[in-house]
C-alpha cells in the first residue's frame, strides 16, 4: 500500500501535469493527478490564486497554463525531492 501523499506532492503533481501538457484541461489533470473533482477544484483555485497557474478560457473549455512562479516552484520542488531522497525523508 502506498503512503498518503503530502499536500506538497499533490501540488507538485498537478503542476507537473500542466507543465508536461503545456496547457491542460481539468479532465486531463483529474486523470493524471488521481484526485476527486471537488479536491482538484479546490487545489486549482488555490494554485491560480497563488499565481502558480493561469486560467485560460476559450469558447469550448477552461485550460490551465503554468506561470513563471509555478515553474520556479516546480524547480524548487525537484531540489527538495532530491534532498529528501538523499536523506530518506518521506515527502
Amino acid at each position: 500500500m502506498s503512503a498518503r501523499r503530502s499536500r506538497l506532492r499533490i501540488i507538485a503533481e498537478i503542476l507537473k501535469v500542466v507543465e508536461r501538457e503545456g496547457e491542460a484541461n481539468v479532465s486531463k489533470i483529474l486523470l493524471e493527478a488521481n484526485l476527486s473533482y471537488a479536491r482538484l477544484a479546490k487545489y486549482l483555485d488555490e494554485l491560480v490564486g497563488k499565481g502558480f497557474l493561469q486560467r485560460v478560457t476559450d469558447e469550448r473549455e477552461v485550460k490551465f497554463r503554468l506561470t513563471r512562479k509555478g515553474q520556479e516552484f516546480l524547480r524548487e520542488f525537484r531540489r527538495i525531492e532530491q534532498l529528501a531522497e538523499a536523506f530518506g525523508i518521506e515527502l
Partner: protein
Amino acid sequence: MPPPPSFWSMYVFPFFLLLDAFSLLALLLLCYFLYRALLTSGIRLFAFFFAGFAVLAAGEVARMIVLMTAVLSGTVGLRALFLSHIAGAVARVSETVALLFIAAGYTFEVGEKARAVVLPLLQRRRDWADVFWLTSLLNTVLLTYIVINAVGVYMSSRKRTAALPAVAFSCMLLSEILLVQSLLWVDELYFILSKAMYFLGLMTLLVLAIEVSRA
C-alpha cells in the same frame, strides 16, 4: 632579520586551509538547500539535517581559526598542525552536536526512537575534562549509527542521490577512527589520512549539493 618562512608555513598549512575552505563551501551549500527545503515544505526533518550541517560548518570555521592562529603565530611542523587540530575543542564539540542533530534526523525518519539512542549519550557529557576523548567516542558512535541509517536509506531506494550521504558519512566515520588511531599511537601519517578521508566525505556532500542545485 626574521627567519625565512618554512616549508610548513608556506605550503602545508595553506594547503590544509584550502581543504577547510572547500569543506566549508560544501557544507554551506548543503545548508542553503536544506534551509530552502525546510521553508518550502515545512517538514521538520529537514530542520535536523540543516542544524547538523550548519553546526558542522561552524565547527569548520573554528578549525580554520585555530589553523590560522597556528600559521600567524609562527608555529610550524606537522606536529603543530596535528596539535592545532586536537586543540580545536570548539570544532570537536560542534562536530558532536552536529552529528547528534543528523542522527536525530535519521531517527525521527525511521520512527520516534530518538530518546532511546540520543539521550543516553547526552547524559554522559559530565566529564568535560577530556573533550577530545569524549567527542571521539561520541562521534564514532553517532557516525556508526548515521552510516547504518544512510546505508539503509540507500538500500531501500537504490538511487545514486541516496548513495552520496552514505559514502560521505562512511568517509567521516573512517576519518574519526583514523584520528583516534593517530592519537593513540601519536602517528602523524594516520592524522593526514584522517584529514584526507574527512575531506573526501565533505567533497561527496559537495557533489550532492551541486546535483541538487542542478535539479
